[in-house]
Every structure is written in C-alpha cells, then in structure tokens.
C-alpha cells in the first residue's frame, strides 16, 4: 500500500500517541549525530576563525594549542563541516523547500517575534525562518569552503593569484560573519522557543510543541499523509 | 695585462671584445663600473651574443665569431683613413717608419714564402731593411712606399665598413659608430682599454686577434698609459702565475725558452737569444738573457751547474718539435705513443677538444695519475655514466690513480692575477681526509724517483740526482722556501767593482731584484721576472697597504707586481719625446732632466734619455711592432681567416680554409664539418654562476645554474620548431649532445656575405660528476685544431646542427 508522503515528513518522524504527554519523534539518532558534528565544527571554526580575524580575539588560539595549530586545524575542520553539512543537506533539503505559506509566515514576522502564532498559517516541519537558516547556511558553507580553499596556503598557495586570494580572504571573512549571525539566530531561536532543544538531544519533542509550532507537520504525521 | 685591474678605473673607453668581463670576471669588472660612474667612461661590447657585459654597455654590436681580425683591421683602416692616429706616438714608439725588405708581399690572403704542403712560410723576406751600419733603415717622413706604415695602410685598406659588415655581420652603422668612439682615443689625453679573454685566444688565429688590437692601441697611443693597455683577463686566479713559471712545454720560468734539438751547444743556444739592438744606443733587455738563464740553472742544479759544464746546459731536454702542447700530447696518446700521464689540477676530458678522441686516447694509457681536489671527469673517464659517458669499462685497461690534493683555500702561497700581481694568501681551512698539498705530492714523487735512480741507476740520471733540493723538510718544501728560491739569492760574496771594501752582494742574502743577477754563477734565481717578490725586505707579496698617493690606481704597496713591482708595462710610453706626460692629468712617470720618476717603477733605465732610448726595451728595436717580422707564424700583419668550420667561405680569400699555417693532424682535417651539413655557427662560453668544472661540485652554484643548456635565437627556434625550456640535440661532425634550450633575443641571426647565419651558444660547465644535473660540455663537438702560434684550441667557432627532441624521462 503506497502512502502519500508529504514533502516535509521524513523517515523516522512519528507520533507516539500512547505517551502522556504525546511525544513526537523529530530527528533520528543519525540525524542528531550529523547535526552535532556540524554544530561542533561550526563553533570551532567560528572560534578559530575569529581568533585570526581580529587581534583582540587572538587569545582564542590558545584553545587550539596556539596559533600554529589553529592555522593548521581550521581548514581541516572546515572540510569536516562541509561534508557533515552535506549530510544534513541531503537529509533536510526536501523538507526545506519553499512554499506559498512560507511567504505569509514571513510577511507576519512581527507576529512571530511577538509570539502570536495564532495569526500565522499552520507550519510544516520547518517554518520559513528555519528554512532561511537552512538555505543561507547551505549557500554560506559553499562560499566558505570555496574561498577557504583559495586561501588554504599549505596546499593551494600556487593555484590562485595573490589578487584572487585577496578577494577570497575578504569574501571568506564576510561570509563567516554572516554565517555566525545566522548561527546566532538559529541558536537563539532554539533557546527562545522552549522545548526545541530536546529535538536534537533526545530526538523528540512534545506533542504540544509540535501542535504549537509545526501543526501542519503534526497533522501529517497523525493522518499518515492521508488528506483529512 | 699590460696594466692592472685597478688601473681600468682610469680609462675613458672600455672595449670588451673577445671576452665577457662582466660575466666571467665580475669582480674585476667593478673597475669598469668605477670608470663609468666616476670618469664618465663609455663601454663598448662587441660579441656574437648580447652578454651580461653588453647589458651594462653604452654600445653593443654583434659580430660573427671568428671574424675579429676583420673588425679590428676595419678599425685600423678607419683610424688611418680618418686621421685618428696619435702621430707622435706612432712615429716615435712603433716601427711605422721602418723600411721592410724588398720581396715581401701579400696577396689573396697569403704572404711571401707560403708552402702549402708544409702549411708553413719561409719567412726570410719578413724583415726590415738593415743599413750598412747594422741598424734598421727608417723613413721618418713615411714617404717610402715600403715603410711599415704604408704597407699597413695598404694591407688594411680592404677592410672597409662594408667589408666588415659582409664578413662580421656587424651592421655598418654600428661599426662606424664604434669606430668613431674608438678613434676619439687617438687624442693625447684620451685612452681606451682593451679587455679580452678566451673569446680571442680560442681561435686558430687567436694570437693574431690579440695582436691586431695591440696594433690599434699602438696607433691610438694607448699602450703604457694609465687607463690604456692590452688587458688579458686570465681565467683562473693563478693562471698568470702558471704561465710565468713555464706553463708551455717550450718555456722555462720567466719566458726563457727551452732549447731545441738544433741547439745542441750552449753557445748555439745563446747565439739566437740576447738580441742585439737594431737602433743606436737602444736598450735591448734580452741582452741580459744569459744572466737570467745561468741563474735559473744555478737555482736548479746548484753546484752541479758550473762554467765548465756550461751551467748544466746538457741537463735540459731538447725539443724535437716546436712544442708538446696539449693537442700534440693527446694526439700522441691517441696514437698509442704515450704510456703514462700525470694530470695535475686539470680536467682534460672536458677541457680539450673532440671528447671522443680524448676518451680513446686516455684508454690507451698504461697509467693515469690525477692530482685534484675534486673527483673530475678525467679521473672517471673509464666509468660508464649512461649517455653522459657511454664507455665500455671492461675494455679500458688504464690504471687510474687519484691523489686528492688541497684546494687554494687550504694552502698558503701566492697567486698571480691578470695584472701580474703576486698576492700572498694564507690557508683558510684544513684539507679534508687524505688530501695533500701538490708540493708534498711532487716532493714525495721526486724523493722516490731519486732513490730509485740511486739504487738502480739509469740513463743519464744526473739531472735528477743533482737537482738542488735545499728545503728544511725535503719531503715538503714550504711556499715561503719556494718563493724565496724564485726571488733568487747570492751564492757567493760579490765585491763592488768600484770599491772592493764594499760588498755588492752578500753570500746567502736574497737579491733585491733581477738587476742583481749575474751570468758568472754567483747568483741563483728560479724565475727572474719574479725577483723582488721575497727579498731581504721580506715577503713583498704579503703586503697589504692600500695607500695610493694621488689616486693613480697603482697601489704600489699592495702585494708585488712583476717585474720589479712595476704596475704598468711600457710606462715610459706615457710620456712624449721630451719626457712629459701626454696627458698631464694622468701622469705616470716623467723625465726630470736627469732621470725618470713618478708614480710607477720606470720601465726603462732610470737615466735613459727620452729622445734616445725607445720605450719598448724588450724589443731590439726599442719600438713596438706594427709589423711583426718573422715572430708570428701566420704573418707579420694580421689577415682575416675564417674558422676551420665556417658558415661562409672567406670573402677575402675564398680558397683558404681556416688559418693556412695552423697545424692539423692527420684525420682531424677529415673531421671538420661543412656548412651544408652543419649550417649553424656554434660558440662556447662560460657563465657567471659557475667556475669552469669546479663549481658544479658546489651546492649553491649548482642550484643557481643547475642544468646544461644551449642558447639560440628566436628566429632559429621558430624555424626549427624549438620551444624554450625544451630539449634539443646538437651535433657536429665529431659528436652529439643533448641539452635544454634557452630561446633568447640576445642571440640574433647575422647576415654575412649575403647569408643568414644563426648562432648556437653552448656554455661549458656541466659534466657527469658533481652535484649539478649531469650534462655535456661543448668539447664533445669542438674541432681538434689550435692557434697557429700557441695551439690554443679553437673552441669559439665551429659548426653544428640542431633539432628538437623529446627529453629523457626523469
């Protein structure tokens, strides 16, 4: 029996109706591992990157055992991040496809910030903000890995001209700043919207959380994809 | 050098031709830079390639290799035609006014008396008319059609700017521009210096190349003056010293000559030396020959050389051929007539022409002894190094004995630089491993030979057994002991003939200079021209006083300059017939009414009156020779002869191949290539980054110029489809080499006699030992022929073909 599978319902997403409160499986173990590798890489990259970006933050290199090792490890972490993020991308890209409702959601962003979700359309697995984080991170990581390789002196110093490297270093820095900001938004949103973090720790959220923030997704899970 | 390195800073015009001073003598070249920067001197470079010297020149002109005489005769012709002659100098100080014997002629490239089968001249007509008084006939008015000047004028008249362009490929405008610059130095206060090196010597007419420039310098009044001269840039730090001490097989130290077979008796030997003056009251310095010779013999054999045995004249070998030059020795070796070869500080396998022949020759030896600080190619000639030395080791039976020797920095002693300065140096390091000084090796060899003769006897052992060997340690004479021996000492007390209570010379004391030498056996001196280097005043070669009164560039208290600390040879010629300096701002010595005095040691008797005694006292005439008499084998005037391998026939004498009197061994003539098979004119040279074949053993030098290459012009590269940085094969009729190629604008094709001539440049620093990349030397390609007078091999002009190849895979 083939089932209609909504685009934002992913394998493993499941409502556990028997519990009280109802719990919803939002992320599989492997997705969570993938996420946390990415997250850790990103944090380490931000710290090591910032240490070389502004002299006042050079002290951060001590976290990595000094400037030499920071210079050595930063690009390798970048490589880890890139592949790890590729994993996330492959998992989540479908669920992050943009929909008409996302525009409405975005248009009512002030309601979002003021916690008036009743004014918003019902949201699938991801709201427009999450999707924007996803897509901007995807784009930024491509930019960062590309520009990063161009200034990875150890292996690529002879491949690009100094002028190209100068452009790359500026692009890399700019993209990194934006990425850090996006990351801040992402983390803040997870903190602000209570009950979110458990999705990435235990893989579960409560039914109420899903009802409140991703009702369309919850409905899809309950109906098993059947149109009600 | 007639002058010194430091004197070059006094010049108005430097002409570098037949050399590449900036490239091959960068340290000495600083004096050119100084002259340019401080005097506004100009620099002319004439070379087939736009060299490193050319890169800092005011004027560069290309020339086809091997055509320098045409260019220089062209300059002489220009100066004569345009009245750019220092007339007072030319008339008084050269043989321009002398009348040449009836019968002497020149036609179609040949002088009177040529014998084609002997490849030699009967030179009897090549001399002056001698008057009834026994002196040379001269015509001060230069009216006599047979005077040297008129013959010279006639001789060079064909070398017009058009002819120069036709032969040399030098554009006419460039030639005339240079001629005008050179001509200006005929002014009494304008001097040009000529700097040359192997670019002139390594030709089948090398001696004449140099002689032609000397003639030009003479008619311009540029010899014997500050900032003038003929300045040979010697290739090794001490090659001048080696030459002074008898490098050539027909010489003994101080340019005395070894007897020939025909000179069986001492009197016979002496009769052709010690030239009688050809002018009244002229000083002919070689009249002292006997003093130099006897003192040399006393230095060699001490008490065994007596008046009774003609100072051991019989101990000297008598030459059966003009000389045993390197080409002849290797030819004999090739014929299997040489058993053993002691090779001291030399790398013949890369240094002599036609490497294939050299390998064959060395393979016929019973033994080869190598004394060298480095592992040379010659020492390894038997070892197969793939294509770089493709020999069949098993078939070579030569026993090779390598004796590691010290290098200059591990040794004390003196080196004689191009400017004839004997400069003492001290050991800077300890020799590695088993390396021993050459003096130790030679002394040990002598001691063992002597012991063998004593024990076993032998045919005429006297020269060995009686050799004077008075060194503190007979097994290792010290540098000081040898230097003192060269300076010479008194063997007996010599009383002053005017006051017998005084001693002229005290027994055992070092001689002040060669002026004290005697022909009665009371003095010993191993090398008369070096006398004064280590006298009772001490080791003058070790002097390090940089004072230079009035900034003349003489530095008379720095080291010792032979002869008698004279810094500029023929310096008497710097003053006119009244004894006043031609250029008062560049005074050297002047006549004060009673004697000569000034900044330098006068090159004349101090009391010789200026209007009586000519300045060139080593010539019996007292004047310099524009007409060489019979002293040059290939003619009293220089003639343009093509190289033996030339892209065109000689435009002035199409039937003559090469130099008509250059010696060519049987078999070598057949190995000369023709332009139809080998269309490109090749030349060999050195690069600044390396010193001969030594520095390829040094990591830094090797990294600065790592790999053998040849250079060609962009036009030839295009024609042949050759890409810069790619591989090519270059071959002559004697061999083939593989090389990287540098395509450059610095080598441009020339138009000679209506034909486009492409040049292939082949530097010579690579071989198969050392730390640089393995490579070849140009001697794999060069012809086996030397200069007609002194047999310097013709390395600078030969023919090759070239093609692009796929390089060896690394």
């Amino acid at each position, binding site marked *: 029996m083939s089932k209609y599978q909504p685009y934002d319902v992913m394998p493993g997403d499941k409502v556990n109706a028997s519990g009280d409160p109802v719990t919803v499986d939002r992320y599989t173990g492997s997705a969570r591992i993938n996420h946390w590798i990415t997250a850790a890489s990103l944090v380490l990259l931000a710290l090591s990157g910032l240490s070389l*970006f502004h002299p006042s933050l050079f002290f951060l290199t001590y976290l990595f055992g000094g400037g*030499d090792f*920071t210079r050595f490890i930063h690009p390798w972490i970048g490589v880890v991040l890139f592949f790890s993020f590729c994993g996330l991308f492959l998992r989540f890209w479908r669920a992050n496809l943009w929909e008409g409702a996302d525009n409405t959601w975005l248009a009512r962003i002030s309601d979002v910030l003021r916690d008036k979700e009743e004014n918003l359309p019902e949201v699938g697995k991801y709201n427009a903000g999450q999707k924007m984080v996803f897509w901007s991170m995807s784009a930024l990581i491509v930019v960062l890995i590309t520009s990063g390789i161009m200034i990875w002196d150890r292996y690529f110093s002879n491949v690009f001209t100094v002028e190209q490297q100068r452009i790359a270093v500026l692009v890399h820095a700019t993209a990194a700043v934006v990425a850090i900001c996006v990351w801040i938004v992402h983390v803040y949103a997870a903190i*602000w919207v209570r009950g979110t973090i458990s999705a990435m720790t235990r893989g579960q959220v409560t*039914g109420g959380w899903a009802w409140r923030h991703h009702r369309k997704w919850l409905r899809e899970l309950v109906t098993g994809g059947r149109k009600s | 050098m007639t002058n010194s390195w430091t004197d070059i800073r006094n010049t108005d015009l430097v002409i570098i031709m037949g050399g590449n001073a900036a490239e091959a003598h960068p340290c000495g070249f600083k004096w050119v830079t100084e002259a340019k920067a401080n005097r506004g001197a100009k620099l002319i470079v004439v070379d087939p390639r736009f060299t490193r010297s050319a890169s800092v020149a005011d004027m560069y002109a290309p020339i086809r290799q091997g055509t320098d005489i045409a260019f220089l005769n062209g300059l002489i012709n220009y100066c004569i035609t345009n009245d750019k002659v220092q007339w007072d100098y030319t008339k008084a100080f050269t043989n321009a006014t002398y009348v040449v014997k009836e019968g002497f002629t020149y036609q179609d490239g040949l002088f009177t008396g040529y014998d084609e089968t002997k490849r030699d001249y009967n030179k009897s007509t090549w001399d002056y008319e001698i008057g009834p008084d026994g002196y040379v006939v001269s015509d001060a008015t230069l009216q006599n059609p047979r005077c040297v000047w008129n013959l010279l004028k006639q001789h060079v008249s064909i070398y017009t700017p058009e002819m120069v362009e036709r032969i040399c490929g030098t554009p006419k405008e460039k030639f005339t521009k240079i001629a005008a610059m050179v001509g200006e130095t005929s002014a009494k206060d304008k001097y040009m210096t000529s700097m040359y090196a192997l670019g002139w010597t390594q030709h089948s007419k090398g001696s004449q190349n140099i002689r032609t420039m000397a003639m030009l310098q003479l008619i311009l009044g540029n010899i014997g003056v500050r900032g003038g001269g003929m300045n040979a840039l010697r290739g090794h730090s001490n090659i001048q010293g080696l030459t002074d001490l008898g490098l050539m097989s027909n010489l003994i130290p101080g340019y005395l000559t070894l007897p020939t077979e025909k000179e069986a008796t001492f009197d016979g030997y002496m009769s052709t030396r010690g030239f009688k003056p050809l002018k009244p009251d002229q000083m002919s310095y070689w009249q002292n020959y006997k003093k130099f010779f006897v003192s040399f013999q006393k230095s060699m054999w001490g008490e065994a050389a007596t008046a009774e045995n003609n100072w051991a004249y019989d101990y000297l070998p008598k030459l059966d051929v003009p000389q045993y030059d390197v080409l002849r020795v290797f030819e004999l070796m090739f014929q299997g007539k040489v058993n053993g070869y002691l090779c001291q500080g030399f790398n013949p396998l890369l240094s002599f022409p036609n490497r294939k022949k050299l390998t064959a020759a060395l393979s016929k030896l019973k033994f080869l002894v190598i004394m060298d600080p480095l592992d040379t190619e010659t020492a390894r000639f038997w070892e197969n190094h793939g294509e770089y030395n493709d020999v069949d080791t098993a078939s070579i039976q030569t026993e090779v004995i390598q004796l590691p020797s010290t290098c200059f920095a591990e040794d004390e002693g003196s080196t004689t630089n191009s400017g004839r300065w004997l400069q003492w140096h001290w050991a800077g390091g300890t020799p590695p491993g088993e390396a021993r000084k050459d003096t130790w090796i030679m002394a040990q060899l002598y001691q063992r030979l002597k012991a063998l003769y004593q024990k076993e006897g032998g045919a005429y052992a006297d020269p060995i057994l009686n050799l004077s060997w008075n060194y503190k340690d007979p097994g290792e004479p010290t540098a000081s002991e040898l230097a003192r021996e060269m300076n010479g000492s008194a063997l007996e007390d010599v009383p002053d003939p005017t006051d017998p209570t005084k001693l002229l010379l005290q027994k055992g004391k070092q001689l002040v200079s060669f002026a004290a030498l005697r022909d009665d056996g009371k003095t010993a001196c191993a090398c008369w021209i070096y006398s004064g280097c280590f006298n009772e005043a001490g080791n003058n070669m070790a002097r390090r006083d940089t004072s230079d009164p009035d900034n003349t560039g003489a530095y008379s208290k720095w080291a010792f300059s032979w002869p008698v600390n004279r810094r500029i040879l023929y310096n008497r010629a710097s003053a006119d017939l009244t004894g006043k300096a031609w250029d008062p701002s560049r005074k050297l010595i002047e006549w004060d009414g009673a004697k000569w005095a000034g900044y330098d040691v006068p090159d004349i008797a101090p009391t010789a009156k200026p209007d009586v005694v000519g300045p060139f006292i080593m010539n019996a005439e007292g004047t310099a020779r524009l007409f060489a008499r019979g002293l040059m084998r290939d003619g009293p005037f220089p003639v343009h002869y093509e190289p033996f391998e030339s892209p065109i026939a000689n435009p002035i004498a199409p039937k003559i191949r090469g130099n008509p009197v250059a010696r060519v061994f049987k078999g070598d003539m057949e190995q000369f290539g023709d332009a139809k098979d080998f269309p490109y004119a090749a030349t060999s040279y050195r690069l600044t980054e390396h010193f001969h074949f030594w520095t390829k053993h040094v990591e830094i030098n090797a990294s600065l110029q*790592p790999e*053998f290459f040849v250079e060609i012009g962009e036009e030839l590269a295009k024609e042949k489809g050759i890409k810069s940085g790619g591989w090519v094969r270059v071959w002559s009729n004697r061999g083939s080499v593989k090389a990287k190629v540098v395509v450059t604008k610095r080598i441009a094709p020339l138009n000679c006699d209506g034909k486009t001539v492409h040049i292939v440049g082949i530097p010579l620093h690579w071989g198969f030992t050392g730390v640089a990349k393995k490579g070849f030397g140009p001697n794999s390609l060069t012809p086996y022929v030397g200069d007609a007078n002194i047999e310097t091999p013709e390395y600078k002009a030969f023919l090759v073909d070239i093609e692009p190849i796929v390089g060896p895979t690394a």
Partner: protein
Amino acid sequence: MRFEFELPNPPTQDVKSDLSERDWVRRSASTVPPPERKLTSIAKLIDVSKCIGCKACQAACLEWNDKRTEVGVNVGVYENPHDLTPDMFTLMRYTEWVNPETNNLEWLIRKDGCMHCEDPGCLKACPSPGAIVQYSNGIVDFVHENCIGCGYCVKGCPFNIPRISKVDHKAYKCTLCSDRVAVGQGPACAKACPTHAIVFGTKEEMLQHAEGRIKDLKSRGYANAGIYDPPGVGGTHVFYVLHHADKPEIYAGLPNNPRISPLVNLWKGGAKYAGMAIIGLTAAFGLLHHVISGPNRVKPEDEENAKKLAKGRAS
C-alpha cells in the same frame, strides 16, 4: 681610494647587537610603546643600471642565512630558482626588452626581494601578534617564533615577496640582514656585490647617491632614469635606480604604483570592525528580544490539542 659606501669587514671580536625590541615602531596585531630613541633611517639601493646579473647576491644570501635551494632544472630562462622561495630571499629577474625608441635590445636585470616598505602591507595583514615587526631604522622583520604560517602577509604584500615554508610553515623573506645591521655590518648581498650595484647606508645618503647615478644615466641618454621609491607604501628601505623609471613594469613586473591593496585595507580595516559589530548586534538583538518577549513556551492546551489530535487518529 675606498669605494663609496664600502661595507666594513666582519669584526674579530664579539659585538653586541644594537637592534632590539626597544626599537620597534610597529608590531603586527598589537601595539608597541613609542620607542625612546629613533634610529637613523637606513636603505639599500639597488642600481639596476650597474647590475650585471651575476647572482653573487643570491649566493651570499644563501650563505649568510645558511639556506640551500634545490638543484633544479633549466626551464628556458636564467632565473634559478625560478621564483623566490622560503629559502631564497632574493632573486635576479631577467627581462629581454626591445626599446621601441632605439630598437636596441636591453637586458633588464632586477634583484627582487623585500622592499622593506615604510607602510608594510605584510605587517598590516598579519593576524599573529609580534610575528612581524618594524624597526625605527625601517627594517621590516619576521619573528618566526610568533609566525603561524597563515600566509596573510603574502596577501598583504604589494610586491608578492613572502613565501611560506612547506617544512616549518613559517613565512620567510629578506631580513635586510637585520642581524648584520645590528652589529654594524651591511646586508650580505651588498657586501658581495662585485659592481657595487647594491649599496647600503642611510636613506638620505642613498637618495643622494641615487641622484648622482641618475645624472650619469641621463648623460648617457636615459632621459627617464630615476629612482623607484614608491610613495604608495610610504617609500621603501630597499629602492631602485632604474634607467626607465617611467616604466617600472618592464622590470619583470615591478608594480607601477604599489600600495596596500584596497581589498586588504578593507579586510584589515573596516571589515574587521564591521564584522565584529554585526555579530555583536545580532547577539544583542537576541538577548534583547528574550528580555522583552520572554521565552516562547508550550502551553498546556497545546499538549491537550496534540493529544486530541493524536487520539483522534488512533480511534
């Protein structure tokens, strides 16, 4: 006669270094107190018109710094090694140039290496405190124990000079022989130069000497002879006399008007502060929002609704 600006021979006794951190005027990614004394500004003058391209400077540089470069290959040019390397701090660059005015070939030979800019781009770009310092005499020096090998100096340099070692991952370039200068000697290359094309002294003396050289060159027909002491980087402590000062680019690409790239200026100037500000603002916005709006909590009715929905499905 002594040569002008002849450098002294090495002392036979120990000499104390007269160059220390007290003479720093700039220190990368950090600040230094103003020095108590101001050393005389020094300079190395490279007179291209006197240079014969002998590479003695390269050999002397390798010897003094105790470096070796590989025995490489010939690639159809005279440059060896083929570029500056972490071991070869100076390089003769050869250009064959046909002068369009005279139609004569000129072989332009320029000694390449660090220019020791008054306003050093490498120092500006360097993120590591104290890895690059500038002395009050003008020498810009790399302090290798502080270098992290990031290659930012390469991007900062308008002359493309520093090279990063593949062995120890540190940046290297000409030190102007700061260790020799510190004991009253001149740079090794200047000492070795046979034609005195490289001279060393105070900047003022060198400028004066250059004037004389330019006069000489003009008298020889080089109407555009001049110095190359680019103002875009505040002048340099290694500068050239060129026969064709109007066309520096013909000397193996000597930049016409070098200055620190605007990209680098942006990166190390505005971007550095703007980036930090943007990050800070974003974080502050979050904080502020949280303070104002408080946490977004799931309400009990949400759980109820969820339960209903789930049960509804189950029944």
